[in-house]
């Protein structure tokens, strides 16, 4: 028996041993309720107003609400616009005098929960909605490796110039901040059914060794990225596979 054969046996034994001892890490499952049950139970989805923490948020809200609406309709859901739930929520909040503790300034959780329960039941009574989808654009921590950031189903280069810059520029690894689309579908009794994310774009990139913030003007301008974020977040819900990644036009040019 030569050293090569012995090494092969050793490798196999090691692999078998690893298989026996190591548990595989399961991929994230966005379904908190089985997909079939959601399909059976939820026909009408009401949208909550999109939450986004940027300057001039209204165009962003409108853009993502339209994209989410189209995606849900593609999946066969009837969609109730966010104005319905927004109006109910506003009226209920006014009736209760808000849900923040006037003494501490903190949210009164009991009041908030009660408010939400009543608002959802009112929504169901008025619109026949059997699900409520909350949508938010949230900042998230993103890891990058050799200048390439990957998060929530998407990726982006840390420097302008894409992969070209990666080959010839300095190469670093670390963490930065990105924006992701968050969707949360709950039934009308506030039971979570589906929670998912779709990465949109980086909020902070590299120039030399310095991080810089992406300006407000550059945020949400890439329609392809916006669409893709919605696909990543909602395709599993509507039973559609996520399109395999294609190189972006701007990155192709870089080569």
């Amino acid at each position, binding site marked *: 028996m030569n050293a090569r054969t012995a090494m092969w046996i*050793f490798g196999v034994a090691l692999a078998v041993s690893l298989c026996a001892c190591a548990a595989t890490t399961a991929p994230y499952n966005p379904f908190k309720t089985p997909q079939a049950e959601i399909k059976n139970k939820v026909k009408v989805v009401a949208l909550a107003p999109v939450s986004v923490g940027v300057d001039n948020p209204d165009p962003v809200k409108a853009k993502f609400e339209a994209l989410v609406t189209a995606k849900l309709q593609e999946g066969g859901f009837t969609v109730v616009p966010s104005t319905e739930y927004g109006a109910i929520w506003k009226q209920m909040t006014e009736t209760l005098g808000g849900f923040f503790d006037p003494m501490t300034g903190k949210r009164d959780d009991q009041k908030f929960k009660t408010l939400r329960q009543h608002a959802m039941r009112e929504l169901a009574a008025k619109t026949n909605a059997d699900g409520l989808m909350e949508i938010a654009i949230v900042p998230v921590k993103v890891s990058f490796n050799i200048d390439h950031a990957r998060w929530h189903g998407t990726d982006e280069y840390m420097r302008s110039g894409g992969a070209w810059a990666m080959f010839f520029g300095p190469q670093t690894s670390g963490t930065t901040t990105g924006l992701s689309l968050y969707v949360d579908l709950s039934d009308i009794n506030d039971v979570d059914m589906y929670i998912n994310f779709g990465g949109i774009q980086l909020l902070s990139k590299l120039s030399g060794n310095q991080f810089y913030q992406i300006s407000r003007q550059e945020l949400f301008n890439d329609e392809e990225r916006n669409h893709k974020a919605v696909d990543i977040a909602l395709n599993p819900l509507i039973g559609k596979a996520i399109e395999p990644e294609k190189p972006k036009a701007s990155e192709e040019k870089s080569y």
Partner: protein
Amino acid sequence: MVARSLLLLSSLISAGWSCAPVALPPIDSSKSFQVGADEKKLWDQSEIFRQRLEKAGLAYEDPELEQYLNSVAARLLGGRLQGTNLAPKVKVVKDPFLSAFTFADGSIYFHTGLLARMENEAQLATIMGHELAHFLHRDSMRELRHKESRRASARVLQGVLILTALGMFADTASDAWVKTAVEGYSKEIEAEADKAGIRAMVESGYDPGEVLPAFTVLKTDWNEAKVKEPYFYGSIALLQERIDNNSQLVSGEYQRQVNEPGRRVNAEEYTARIHRLLLDNAVLDLEVGRLRLAESSIAKHLATDPQSPQGHFLMGEFYRRSGNNEEAVKAYARAVAFDAQYADAHRELGLMYRAMARPADARAEFEKYLVLRPKAVDAPIIERYVAEPGPQ
């Protein structure tokens, strides 16, 4: 030479070096028990966990139930810990998922979800015996030392592999080894606990005929669960392993004791002890949308207390959430029939009638609610509903 060394190493791996549990003397009254420095850390973790649990409001407060659970543990232990200054402490966690777990210091935690599924004390003793075995065998310590030894061995192996040009594999291998090593106890340790657990229950006078039902009840419920159960007693594969191990023991070593006259089952006391817990756990199941499991607990509660207002109220919640409004109204009405002061049931009736376009009935129920609970958080919303104009 290299070939011979590698072969030796591979034989060691194949022989189970990587998965074999570490030997440690069990806790026993016949020997003095000393806690080592690393074991002391595990004991401290138990205290930290207890404090966090309480801070998070997840500790289930029912002193009588806790006392009862501890008495079952004491019965299973017999005189095993006499003179050791050690005693297990059984506590309950508010969680509808199926789990029971044991810390190194003998703190045993049962989830409300698991207790709600058990049908009698003998079934409880089956799970308790298994968990006590983990404590007595110092399994968390054995597992910790086993993992430490695997980490050390991984580092040695990685060096060998790099030298033998398998470096890239070694990198990912050791990473995976350490990061994704099996959580919880190994198959061998669980099998030992099965064996010791059933022995303890039989020696304490329990009927081993209840061993398999204890696990099959959990397995049946698995099919009802809306989402995958995340814990040990909720994993279908691990449950099947318990069933396989225990059915061998029940049909072999303990066959004579199955259904033997005088063997303890004690369904009556167990049901009485978990009477309140059944409803508290049903609320948790309703909150996560596991309607059938909630219904089953509520029905169990109502079977022993058919006039329970809270039982009927929660049955109303089950029907409402299932979309059966007619039955929901009946159940809420039963709740107020048994307790006219039941404010929540009046409110729910009001909301149901309002949705069913019966404004006069709705108003009557809302008014009762406001009289009973004028300072309720949602009183302003209900007042607005009362003021709504009726049909023209």
